[in-house]
């Protein structure tokens, strides 16, 4: 099974998000109130190590397990979509205390009410698909 490695990666992701309390609504509130370093530490360490690693991948032109070069696609140039879309996302993140990954980790953890949040996140993505041609990008 080619897909089993993604299952294992997902399991590790779920465990570490739950065990470091990054799936907690309280932790997200603490972050947006600047009252602890915890969430900034998690994201900060991930980004610093990420920057170093991506630099090394590019410098040494590393390849993936199939032998293809690892490439990074530049995202579309725009300000408005990132700022408006990002702000809408941020409001939902603070209100529900979870971004998409932590939503499903919470469901597994036993917070079944997160099914409501996740289901409406799917609906939100659908709505975006329906009206996207009328939105500034």
């Amino acid at each position, binding site marked *: 099974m080619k897909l089993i490695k993604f299952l294992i990666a997902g399991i590790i992701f779920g465990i570490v998000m739950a065990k470091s309390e990054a799936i907690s609504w309280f932790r997200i509130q603490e972050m947006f109130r600047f009252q602890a370093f915890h969430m900034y530490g998690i994201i900060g360490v991930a980004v610093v190590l990420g920057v170093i690693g991506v630099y090394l991948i590019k410098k040494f032109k590393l390849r993936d397990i199939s032998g293809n070069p690892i490439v990074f696609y530049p995202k579309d140039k725009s300000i408005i979509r990132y700022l408006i879309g990002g702000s809408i996302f941020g409001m939902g993140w603070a209100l529900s205390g979870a971004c998409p990954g932590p939503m499903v980790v919470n469901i597994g953890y036993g917070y079944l009410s997160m099914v409501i949040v996740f289901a*409406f996140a799917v609906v939100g993505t659908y709505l975006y698909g329906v009206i996207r041609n009328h939105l500034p990008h």
Partner: protein
Amino acid sequence: MIQMSEFFTQSWPWWFSGLIISSIMFLLLFFGQSFGFSSNLRTICAAAGAGKTVGFFNFNWKSQMWNIVFLTGAIMGGFISGTVLKNDNPVEISEATKQDLAELGFSEPKGMQPEELFSLESAFGLKSFILLALGGLMVGFGSRYAGGCTSGHAISGLSDLQWPSLIAVIGFFAGGLIMTHLLFPIIF
């Protein structure tokens, strides 16, 4: 061995979490994919047949199966954390946050999530249901409008020093601060 089992059941430090999250990102790159969780929401719409009527969902969603498998793993990881690796201590947030939230009517943490919103009893009350639905709606809409969520922009995008991702992350925080500091006192 006692120390080892204690490590697994107590909550894990931020630096360890950050280390593993960046490792997951690199693992996915070496598997020929990239770390971005909210794409799954689009894939689910496409798999449910939304591509027949809405062009945005008309793509080869089966090529995204690896990410749905990753999502399934994340649910399983959550389950393992909520059972065998569970500790019964409530989330250890700062006193200042507890005080701020008490003023809004939230009781002290008893687990990961506030009972007032997420206990099944509350979640199916009208107010909490609307708030949870609205929160999910904004996350789903906003992440696709912005072209990614915390994993795609804040982790993957910033690691590649992409300006669009920095703008998106600024947006995430602007929205989060507006919700927390301006709207929470009205809502709760």
